[in-house]
């Protein structure tokens, strides 16, 4: 069961990811990305993290990607559609990524508990919003507060960057 779920999600995710980078139309890319995010959320679920799934779907698939789509529509980007797929660049990028992949997989061999098998039947502590919330407001209160400042900065930044010019 675990295996089937994983393989389906994995193949779907990889396909979505490929679609993101290969689609000529940015809108299609963005939609693929939404799909990918949803699949990723489900993957989180397979790892017993329901809270993160929700966050993933709401924040990423919901807010972030909507923003992307919105901007793409707004800017009306069609120029790139006419260009052919840059195979040469793709090949170079693949090559570099392959080398990186080589390193990555050799590193992967060494991960401790790497061969620990996933089993849903095994009891694992349930990770729900409450526990994470508790941690966030006790141990991790400082970074959490800082994210607040971060969002403030982002807000100001977005306003500054997109405010209509005063004529």
């Amino acid at each position, binding site marked *: 069961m675990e295996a089937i779920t994983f393989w389906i999600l994995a193949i779907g995710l990889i396909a979505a990811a490929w679609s993101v980078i290969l689609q000529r139309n940015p809108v299609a890319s963005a939609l693929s990305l939404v799909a990918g995010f949803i699949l990723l959320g489900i*993957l989180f679920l397979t*790892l017993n993290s329901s809270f993160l799934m929700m966050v993933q779907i709401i924040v990423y698939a919901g807010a972030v990607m909507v923003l992307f789509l919105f901007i793409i529509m707004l800017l009306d980007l069609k120029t790139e559609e006419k260009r052919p797929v840059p195979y040469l660049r793709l090949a170079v990028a693949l090559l570099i990524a392959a080398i990186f992949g080589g390193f990555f997989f050799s590193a992967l061999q060494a991960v401790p508990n790497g*061969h620990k098998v996933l089993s849903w039947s095994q009891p694992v502590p349930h990770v729900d919003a409450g526990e*994470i919330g508790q941690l966030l407001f006790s141990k991790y209160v400082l970074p959490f507060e800082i994210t607040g400042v971060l969002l403030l900065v982002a807000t100001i930044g977005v306003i500054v960057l997109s405010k209509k010019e005063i004529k």
Partner: protein
Amino acid sequence: MEAFTQITLNHYLALSGILFMIGMIGVMMRRNIIVIYMSLELMLNAANLALVSFSRFSAVPKLDGHIMVFLIITVAAAEVAVGLALIVALYRLKQTTNTGDLTSLKF
């Protein structure tokens, strides 16, 4: 055959790695800044996946990884907001989102 039936941490990590690399390829290959930016999001998500899996599979399950993921998602959201605002501003000024058109600063 076991490799297909027994899903291990390595499977998740491999998936995250592949996701990461696809994102990397996208960043290298694409010229449209928005798509590049989407690819970057893919890379961040790969990291999230890795973190969550590590959390799940650790000997003594811990939540620090989840906190990290939560923070990453928040930060990424903020980053996307600022980034897209920047791209919009760029588009307004130059009517392009192609990296090939951004070469006035060089050498």
